[in-house]
């Protein structure tokens, strides 16, 4: 099934992706950001906070934004 995935980690990315049917939010996160902690991110599905075990549906909009980012002094 197709999802609209927004990854605000790194350079930023927003596009449609194909995933297996019935994938959960936690499994999707682990697939896209392996080795990272979900607690370090703001995860929204269709603009709403969502539990990790929620099953994603076709056409869902999922955004993942780091909650801790290092700034700098230019």
């Amino acid at each position, binding site marked *: 099934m197709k999802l609209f995935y927004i990854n605000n980690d790194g350079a930023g990315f*927003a596009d449609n992706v194909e995933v297996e049917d019935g994938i959960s939010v936690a499994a999707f996160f682990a697939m896209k950001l392996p080795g990272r902690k979900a607690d370090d991110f703001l995860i929204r599905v269709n603009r709403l906070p969502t539990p990790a075990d929620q099953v994603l549906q076709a056409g869902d909009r999922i955004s993942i934004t780091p909650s801790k980012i290092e700034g700098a*002094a230019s």
Partner: protein
Amino acid sequence: MLPIPTLLRLARRLEILWASKPEPPTRPERAWASLRSQLTEAESLRWRIEQATARRLDCAAACLKQELSTLLKVMGQRIDELRDHCDATPPRGPDRCEWIRELRHLETEFGTVTVRWTDTVIRIVTEPIELKGVSLGPFAIEFNWSGGPSATGSRAVEVKALKPNRPAGRQDVTHPHVEDDILCAGEAKDALDQAIADGRLVDAFQLVHSVLTNYNPHSAYVSLNEWDGSHCAQCGRRIRSEEASSCEGCDCDLCDECGERCEGCDELRCGDCTEPCDVCRARHCRGSLDTTARGRAVCSDCRDVCPGCQASFPKDELDSDGRCPNCSSVEETDDPAPETEAAEAIPL
């Protein structure tokens, strides 16, 4: 919540700004020019093949056919590229409904959203931010939409401290990563620029918030270790608040190497609040020294009373008998002529 008319008006405004302009289907120019020249060459090869075949030059004809086949294959690839480019849907920004959802989502994430039409600013306020025990207060994150999708985060976003806690000596810094209300986004820069380009305002604000709530000690305008300090009034060195002393005369901050204690009262004072005794050079609270007739500032330990006139003088002005210059000179004047010893009579 934003009133419906404001919401609709803003969504329409943003939709117009973020709508992309479709490119003409005749581009790219170079690919079309290349196809035209290849077509001309293919026409030439086809005529030469006909000539070679008519003259029964089979070998030449075979070579030319091979060359034409290769050229037509390349032309086919070029045509496929042009077709893909022609069929591609140009990227478009969010439509009005999407902008409405975006703005409502912004309210859900950050609470009150303020719109200032004259400044073309969308504003949210963060919670009070504290980093490593240093309270920095709440910040207003202001997004200026006038630049549209091409505005970069550093130009479109301002971060203003609402209850600023600035480091000593840096009125332009309100956060380790904010100078003159401009956030240095660091690792968030590219994602922030992309979010603005895509019209994902919530993502943009969240990214800014994520930078504000994190501290990078390796690249800060002012380190948090030095945030609550001050500057020594005498040497200018930055000192932590717990290491600072205060001059008891003017209350300025002093480091542990500066400042002197008054020889008289033992109070800690800065250089401007003490003066040296002109006799012993020890420093005393300014104004505590007596000024002599000659204009000398002398401490009480360096004064003595002349036994002659009972007046107080600096010790270094008294003679060995403890008399002042006046009394010394008077005593010399009153002395009788010194007695001459009678010459011993010599018998005749």
